[in-house]
């Protein structure tokens, strides 16, 4: 496969702006880039989900223009999505053969299961074709996706952030599978933002930055530092200007907290954690390790199964979200559009979302629109929300400005503690800096800040202490000042023994 000067422009955004790539037969080729570098846009174009603005994709020596995934599959491209395209209610065999089932009118289940079993053995995937997909672990579900690709005789496998949801053990197994594929001569395109994985698994690496491919290098000759420099484009990583912290008394204490998600799966498995006034505690971890359930549980959005949450000296484990808000917990939720805002409400209505019961916004159950509007206008000025129009609906704002509205609402309530989950996800650099400044300002005012983020850079640059969560447990707490990317990354991947790590 060859990609020549591919571009994809959205209104106002150049998601891909000159992508060049050559994929050789039988190699594992990694595409490395930070979140927002344009990797997923590139994938969607290769897979026919988006049409390029300009440029060309050549596959097997011919220029191709896929208008749908169907055409891409037909041409021999197999894609394993980050979020699996599996039907939980069906069996493995049914999922694999769907769309190309054996049989005429009757579905020949036996034949389907036989074919899937054969494929599974051929590629050493060890999957029971009769199992229901809903009962499989994430790692096994990923193998079903790989099987789907092989069943359709894929000549190229694309793995999109394949380790995002995997345990370290599952990651090892996946890498063994990829090595097997390479031995069989199947080229693999491995998309990731994780340096260590890319170094381990790939033959060559193409680094993307800001929608462009920067350089393609042989993995053998690359070092973590050289790749990191290519990724971020400068020697120094983004550091936020901040003075030394002056941590005070603990504001939040968590004892042996257990939380189950809506699917009754235990996500938080006995967390003990302490957050002090005047510090930023970063909670680092790979997505899916319970960090967001922990944040939701502190805010009261999910009930704790077991354990205690002590806030400002009181046990709040059984309090409602409204009561916790009242006691001074502010929360910037992970999914701002689903949780943090009512998109069809205007900014005034969104600004009072957490305090609509209280004066001055309401008296005796009647909302004082004028008071709410003048407060909103003040926040819009202070936080530079654009456009500065309180009567706009939240849906009409850009992501960065939506986040500003949420942050303005939360920090202006004069809370004792702020939980910020993924506060800068998908935002541009200017907006990120503004939000980081607010977090530091809050800390300097003596508030406790719990920063939950999947961006290691963000955690490293902001945190006074870093707690690492893995598989629902805090595996280490290290001082932020001297923490390194490699050290935290290792902990996030589940390697225990934090004493020697924090000294290294």
């Amino acid at each position: 496969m060859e990609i020549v000067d591919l571009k994809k422009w959205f209104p106002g955004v150049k998601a891909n702006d000159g992508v060049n790539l050559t994929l050789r037969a039988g190699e594992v080729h990694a595409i490395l880039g930070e979140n927002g570098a344009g990797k997923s846009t590139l994938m969607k174009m290769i897979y026919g989900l988006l049409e390029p603005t300009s440029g060309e994709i050549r596959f097997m020596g011919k220029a191709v223009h896929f208008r749908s995934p169907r055409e891409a599959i037909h041409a021999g491209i197999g894609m394993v999505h980050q979020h699996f395209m599996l039907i939980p209610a069906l069996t493995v065999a049914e999922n694999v053969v769907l769309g190309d089932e054996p049989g005429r009118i009757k579905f020949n289940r036996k034949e389907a299961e036989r074919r899937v079993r054969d494929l599974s053995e051929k590629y050493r995937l060890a999957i029971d074709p009769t199992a229901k997909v809903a009962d499989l672990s994430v790692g096994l579900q990923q193998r079903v996706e790989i099987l789907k690709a092989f069943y359709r005789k894929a000549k190229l496998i694309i793995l999109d952030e394949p380790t995002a949801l995997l345990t370290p053990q599952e990651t090892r197994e996946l890498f063994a599978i990829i090595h097997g594929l390479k031995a069989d001569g199947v080229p693999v395109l491995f998309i990731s933002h994780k340096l260590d994985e890319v170094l381990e698994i790939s033959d060559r690496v193409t680094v993307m930055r800001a929608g462009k491919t920067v350089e393609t290098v042989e993995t053998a000759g690359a070092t973590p530092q050289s790749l990191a420099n290519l990724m971020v484009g400068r020697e120094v990583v983004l550091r936020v200007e901040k003075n030394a912290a002056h941590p005070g008394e603990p504001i939040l204490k968590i004892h042996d907290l257990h939380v189950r998600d809506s699917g009754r799966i235990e996500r938080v498995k006995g967390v003990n954690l302490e957050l002090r006034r005047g510090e930023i505690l970063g909670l680092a971890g790979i997505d899916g390790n319970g960090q967001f359930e922990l944040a939701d549980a502190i805010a009261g959005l999910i009930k704790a199964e077991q354990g205690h949450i002590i806030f400002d000296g009181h046990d709040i484990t059984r309090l409602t979200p409204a009561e916790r808000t009242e006691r001074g917990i502010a929360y910037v939720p992970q999914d701002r559009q689903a949780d943090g805002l009512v998109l069809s409400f205007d900014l005034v209505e969104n600004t009072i979302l957490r305090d609509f019961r209280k004066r001055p916004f309401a008296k005796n159950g009647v909302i004082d629109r004028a008071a709410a509007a003048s407060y909103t206008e003040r926040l819009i000025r202070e936080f530079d929300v654009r456009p500065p129009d309180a009567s706009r609906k939240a849906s009409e704002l850009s992501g960065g400005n939506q986040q500003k509205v949420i942050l303005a609402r939360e920090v202006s309530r004069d809370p004792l503690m702020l939980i910020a989950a993924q506060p800068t996800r998908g935002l541009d650099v200017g907006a990120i800096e503004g939000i980081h400044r607010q977090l530091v300002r809050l800390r300097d005012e003596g508030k406790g800040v719990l920063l939950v983020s999947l961006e290691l850079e963000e955690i490293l640059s902001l945190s006074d202490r870093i707690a690492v969560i893995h598989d629902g447990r805090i595996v280490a707490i290290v001082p932020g000042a001297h923490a390194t990317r490699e050290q935290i990354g290792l902990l996030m991947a589940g390697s225990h023994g934090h004493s020697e790590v924090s000294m290294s």
Partner: protein
Amino acid sequence: MIFSDPEIWAATLSMAVPLALPAIGGTFSERTGVVNIAMEGIMLIGAFFAVTFSYWTGSAWLGLLAALICGGLTAAALAWGAIRVSADQTVLGMGINIFAAGLTTFLLNTLFGFNGTPINTPKLPDISIPGLDKIPYIGVIFQNQSILVYIMVVLVIISHWFLFHTRLGLRMRSVGEHPLAADTLGINVWRIRYFGVILSGLFSALGGAYLSIGVLNGFTPNMTNGRGYIALAAMIFGKWTPLGSFGAALIFGFSTALGIVLQGQGISSNLLQMIPYALTILALAGLVGRAVAPAADGIPYDPRRS
């Protein structure tokens, strides 16, 4: 003891038909991901056009064919709105129900005057299967049942086989669970959904025709009397499977049959008629078994936004 009387079981079977047929139809529609609350209206359409064409052509079978065609067309309109336009499926269904109630009454009054359909309209035959009617007890149950009763029994079995043991059935189920996944595997989501909804229209129309030219030979305004809605409940009660729907329809049919029997003993029919509705609420409240709807049921799919 009334339960030992085969007549009550014969009545149960007979009452189950106009519930089981639309319930199975609804199963096909919802398994592909389209909520169909228009079954009540489609039944009315089926019932009315069955009578009309039966009278005009003199053949109940041609009446049945007309019912199927009109029911299928009505379902196609629902399908277009739900699939192509991504409109709210409950609202669309409501619209069709009111439209169907109005249209059938309107046409009844304009085509046949205000005195109802002619009494000499042909109806579908009642039959007894030779041999089966010789078996004691069972024979009485199946004695002189409408031919549609037997057709229904066959359809129940075929439907179950079709949904769970054919390639198309597998594709229908996949579309109702995760349309995007199905689409990426080359399955035409929209076409499958059209198929499911129109199939539900055919089944519902058949159920309506059973009322008008199977049991009776005439049409009265609103003669379905909410059966389309009870069928919806039977489908849920039957966990979105044809066999389950049939089982639930039998339970609801039995409660109606019981009502008829007990009415002779001085119990208000109004109170007894509440039984199916009350059972439905209990089923929905999870007090008599819980069912999980297809994951994408009621959610429009737009392939261009994926």
